[in-house]
């Protein structure tokens, strides 16, 4: 189907696009705090929000975690890829 080839070709080119960078940290933090979040989970909202900003914030996130165990290790490793993927 010719149309499928067009879509496939456009898609293969489009995959190389770099999405715009966004920083939603302040907004997310404001929303979570307005809703009274942060008391019910082990993850500090500031640490969570810091992961939503530029990659430079990642070391801050890692230092903020004090919970041990495989779950937090998984989370920390995942957060290292979080920003780039989410964009």
């Amino acid at each position, binding site marked *: 189907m010719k149309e499928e080839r067009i879509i496939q070709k456009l898609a293969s080119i489009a995959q190389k696009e770099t999405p715009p960078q966004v920083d939603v940290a302040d907004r997310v933090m404001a929303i979570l705090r307005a809703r009274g*979040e942060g008391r019910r989970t082990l993850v500090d909202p500031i640490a969570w929000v810091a992961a939503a900003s530029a990659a430079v914030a990642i070391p801050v996130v890692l230092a903020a975690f004090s919970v041990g165990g495989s779950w937090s290790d998984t989370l920390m490793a995942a957060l290292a890829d979080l920003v780039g993927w989410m964009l």
Partner: protein
Amino acid sequence: MMWRFSRDPDTHEDLVQDVFVEAYQSLSSYRSKAPFPHWLARIATRVGYHHWKRQKRERAIQTIPLEEWHEVPEEPADGMEPAEAAELLHRLLEQLPPRDRLALTLRYIEDHSVQKTAELTGWKPSMVKVQTWRARNKLRRLFEKAREEEAR
């Protein structure tokens, strides 16, 4: 990923925000059975899909008029700018219902397998295949309709 759901910078930012807020509020439901990025990807897919459904309801979509479809290159050049290709593809797929659009976006633009698409959408793999096939057929009919209009 959220850039696939909206190419408007303000809306894109809203969607990214929504994903992080929803994910944070759902953290207690994360069971570590699936890798964390997979869990987050499902939330992102859901947020994006709901955005498209809302858009459709509000009919706030800038689509490509049928008379402009002849501008879609039959053989997109390798030198085409990625942003240009992405924008054109985005506007083409906007013609489709959200479910069809999601299937093609995940399978073609995000280049996910049937299995991965099923995980992201919550559909069965057989449903992904059927949905993708139906979406391609709808797009083909839209192209044919555009050619008929152009031929008049």
